[in-house]
C-alpha cells in the first residue's frame, strides 16, 4: 500500500468530498492509493447518523476520476481479472491504528474519524469471498 498523493484540489479525497456538497455533507475517514488506483472512505451525514460511503478512483492521463461508489466494503474490478478488496468499519480500538489481516496479508492502517479503511490490491474476483471477514486487532501504533 502506498501513501496517498499530497492533498490537492484534484486529489481523490478532495474530489470525493467535493461531490458531497463541497465537503459540507461528508467527512474524510480514510484514503488508500496504489499506483493509479485510489479508494476514499467518507462519512456522510452528521453524527449520530453517519453513513460510510466508499469511492474508488482511477488516474488516467494524470487526472483522477471516480469509478465506483458503494455503501458496503467489497471487491471492485480494476480491469482485467483482478480487482481490489476493501474493508472498512468503525475502529475496534478507538483512535489506535488497526491491524487488518486478510488471506495471509496484513496491513496496519490509521483510524480517522473513528473508522479504518484497509485495501488489498490485485485480488482475483474468484478469490474474494464476501463471507470471509478480516481479522482485526488494534495496533500499538
Amino acid at each position, binding site marked *: 500500500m502506498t501513501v496517498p498523493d499530497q492533498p490537492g484540489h484534484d486529489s481523490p479525497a478532495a474530489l470525493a468530498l467535493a*461531490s*458531497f*456538497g463541497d465537503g459540507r*455533507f461528508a467527512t474524510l475517514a480514510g484514503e488508500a492509493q496504489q499506483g493509479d488506483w485510489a479508494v476514499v472512505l467518507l462519512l*456522510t*451525514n452528521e453524527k449520530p*447518523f453517519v*453513513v460510510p460511503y466508499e469511492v474508488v478512483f482511477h488516474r488516467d492521463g494524470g487526472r483522477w*476520476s*471516480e*469509478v*465506483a*461508489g*458503494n*455503501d*458496503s*466494503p*467489497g*471487491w*471492485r*474490478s480494476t480491469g482485467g481479472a483482478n480487482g481490489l478488496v476493501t474493508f472498512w468499519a468503525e475502529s475496534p480500538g478507538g483512535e489506535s491504528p488497526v491491524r487488518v489481516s486478510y488471506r495471509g496479508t496484513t496491513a496496519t492502517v490509521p483510524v480517522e474519524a473513528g473508522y479504518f479503511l484497509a485495501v488489498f490490491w490485485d485480488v482475483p*474476483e474468484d478469490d*474474494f469471498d*464476501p463471507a470471509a471477514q478480516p481479522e482485526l486487532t488494534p495496533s500499538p501504533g
Partner: protein
Amino acid sequence: MRKFLVVVSAAATLGAGAAAFAPAVSASAATTPTATTPATTVVHYGGMVRAGSTDATPAGTATPAATAYPSCHSIKYVGNAGFISVQEKSNKLQWGITMTPLSYSVGKWSVSTYLSGKKTTSGFNRTVTIGYIPHGSLSVPSGKIFHVMAEVVGPDGTFTNVPNACRT
C-alpha cells in the same frame, strides 16, 4: 451533488430512497421517453421477488434476457417484493434496491453489479438490522449492458432479483 445523501434511519432511509431515484411511476402508467416527451422513469418487470415464488428464478441464474435493452437513463424494475432503480446521466450510473415493505431489507445481503457480463463490483455484502436501501454508483461507458444481481436472506425470507438489464 449526489442525490442519495441523506440516509439516517429506517424511516428516513425510505425517504432518501424516494429522493435518490426518479419519482415512482406505476407499472400501468409506465411510459417510454421519446424525442418529443420529457424523460420519465421507465418501469419494467424485473425487481426483487421472494425466492421460490413463481416469479423467481433460481439463485445465480438470474441473467439478463437476450432482448432489446431499455436505456439506463431512468428505469425502475419492479418485482413483488421490491424494486431496483437505475439512473444514468453523463456516463455516471446510480443504482439502488428498495424492498417493499422496507422490513424485507433486514438480513444478509449479497449484491453484485455487471457491465456487459463482467462483474464491476461486489457492491453490497453485509447484514443490515434496520430497513435499508443498498445503493451505489458506477462510471460507465456508453453502449454497455448493466445489470444487478441481488439476494437478501432475512427473517422474512429469501428474496432475489429477477432478470434486469439496461443499456448505458
